[in-house]
């Protein structure tokens, strides 16, 4: 976990502010759950779909990186204040770009991503049954 993080940190990051964060104690809600189970569940579901920006393919819900801890704190605080998960996601996307969300939006750049599987299934099905199926009720033998 930490090793992955360190490699990532060495390769992708040289920015000082993040290193400075390392020395601060973690924000209170980084490793602390909300008291209301319904709100905690909401926060957890949202955190699982947000990318830890300094890790290798991990969500902020399962990373020990200080930045992930800060983002967890941010998400839990906002959920506790009554903000909806969608608003929080929009706020984070506005700050960090679509990179931060594991749930890509449907727009011009991702149309192929979302429609690709449907397209594949449709064309594949049409081809397969055009080719293999015995025509009508007639028997070949």
């Amino acid at each position, binding site marked *: 976990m930490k*090793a992955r993080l360190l490699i990532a940190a060495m390769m992708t990051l040289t920015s000082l502010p993040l290193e400075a964060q390392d020395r601060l104690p973690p924000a209170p809600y980084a*490793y602390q759950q909300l008291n209301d189970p319904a709100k905690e569940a909401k926060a957890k579901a949202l955190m699982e779909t947000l990318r830890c920006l300094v890790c*290798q393919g991990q969500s902020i819900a399962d990373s020990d990186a200080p930045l992930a801890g800060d983002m967890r704190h941010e998400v839990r605080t906002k959920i506790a204040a009554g903000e909806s998960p969608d608003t929080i996601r929009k706020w984070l996307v506005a700050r960090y770009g679509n990179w931060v969300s594991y749930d890509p939006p449907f727009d011009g750049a991702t149309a192929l*991503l979302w429609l690709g599987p449907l397209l594949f*299934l449709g064309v*594949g099905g049409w081809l*397969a049954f055009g080719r*293999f199926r015995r025509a009508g009720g007639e028997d070949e033998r």
Partner: protein
Amino acid sequence: MIAELGLALLWMAAALACLSLVAGALFLRGGPKDLASLVRPASVAQGVLTAAAFGLLIALFVRSDMSVELVARNSHSLKPMLFKVAGAWGNHEGSMLLWLTILGLSGALVALFERRLREDTLVATLAAQAALSLGFFAFLLFSSNPFNRLPIAPPDGQGLNPLLQDPGLAFHPPTLYIGYVGLSVAFSFAVGALVTREIGPAFARAMRPWVLGSWIFLTLGITAGSYWAYYELGWGGWWFWDPVENVSLVPWLAGAALLHSVAVTATRNALRAWTVMLAVIGFSMSMVGTFIVRSGLLTSVHSFAVDPERGTFLLVLMAIYIGGALALFALRAGTVAEGKKFALLSREGSLVINNLLLTTILALVLLGTLYPIVAEAMGEKISVGPPYYNKVAGPLALILCLVMVAGPLLAWRRDDGKRLWSRLPPAVLAGALVLFGLVLFGGSVRILPLLGMTVAAVVAVASLAPLWGRNLRRTPLPTWGMVIAHFGVAVALAGMAAESAFIKERLVAAAPGETVKVDDFAVTFVGVRPIAGPNYTAIEGRLVATTGSGASFTLRPEARTFPGLMGGPPTETNEAALLTRPGGQLYAVLGQPVTSPDGTAERYQLRLWWKPLVWWIWLGGALIAIGAALSMLGRAQLLAMWRTHRSKKAQERFAP
């Protein structure tokens, strides 16, 4: 001397691969007949020599010969022996040599044991296998020589990534590689059959054990990798839809589709061109996976060296092989008829739907993995993660499971559906019971886990249906294999759905003596103590978990610190403690210490999870592998041979 001998063996093996390829090609173009008799022994010798070279590399690691660059960079004289040996393939050059060893040995096995195919198809297959080996030999010898010497030997090595110092590593890469490379044999069979136009049941039967065998290893490799991520990364996730996981899943999906379509070709002589196409796709996906992981396109624990030259080399190799095979397919596809046709409601029909869904899932996993890379090249940074795969692949996988229920209950060619309708009610009833139970008593369960558990119940009951009313002792092994593998899918699906629906999480900063409730457990944090391992120091926590019925268990999670290598920063890993119970697993992690403002009374971050039925996921994976193994054993006709042998003996005994 050992390193020089290893390099010499590699060059000799490469020369033999060259010989197999040239002799095979000349023979197929109408050259003298004697050339064909060269190909078999050359393939065997090539496999043996490559394996010997790999053995010598392991010997270098065992002896900690630091004058060899690879050993100096990846090993250390104080490392435990298991990790010294595993270090031989825990790096780029060594893993490519392992890849070549398996490629050569599988070619040798085909040369030794394959007797069902026509001589010319076999020669074409071995020549194709030699062509594959040759490219990877060139890669190894020209751009990643594992036996390179250092001008001055360092006093000791630089060690190995501590995260990888785990017994799992010793077996994870070889298992996956056997799976990946086993598919190369299917690829070579397909190329061979395309060259000689012998595509039919004989070709499918020759290919089937290889497809099954490599699929077993892929299943085991993925299952073990998932369990490794689960207990080693310290957050209890078992699948992250990480690009590295995805590229191992893609060949598995191709293998799953291929082993079903090859059954149709072997039994009914149908779907011929499609089976050939899938065999080409299967190994192509293995190569794409290796390329993506090894080229450094993704930086992760799996990419040992980021080197653009190697990436380009692999990309060119891949383009030649995949492009060549597809061009051959395009040239010959017109002359390959699909074979016998069939009605939609038939075993073949359900297997076509199975293949369609599997390849669609394959395509979308590949799309989701490559899309961010392409998008980034075009200036758009996006992430594709679990929400995408759950939304798109989830429903398709559930439909696939329902088709899996129908397939085994339908007859070949065409079916009136009577058997299906008569055996379906118990399965539907089981599904309905689970669905109503969950809706009434399960609380708020998300839609995908809810449907997952329902479908798992349907599949669990229906997968046993092919055995009803049969004499179990006389049921052929492949049928048993199918039933067990399909049942394994239900078990794994139930585990995945139950874990994501009912997981309980507790994150606390606990002082010694404090008790935390998680689900039915009362977990008391007793305290911590420092311990020292062979090459790390650790803080060991002691937790006592008491169940509702009063039984208590001790858990000892560790936070390990490995000293920094070459003056680098130290590396920390978490060793989770797991308590396996019939209903699931209790997962405990010891996190960072927390000092209170006045500097006294040290608390520790504890992460506790109750994960219901989580171990069913890997049990299911194991059942799938066991099922495939039984099916393979049955096809190998070993049992039939033993039975005829026994009945012969019995007859002899009663002979007058």
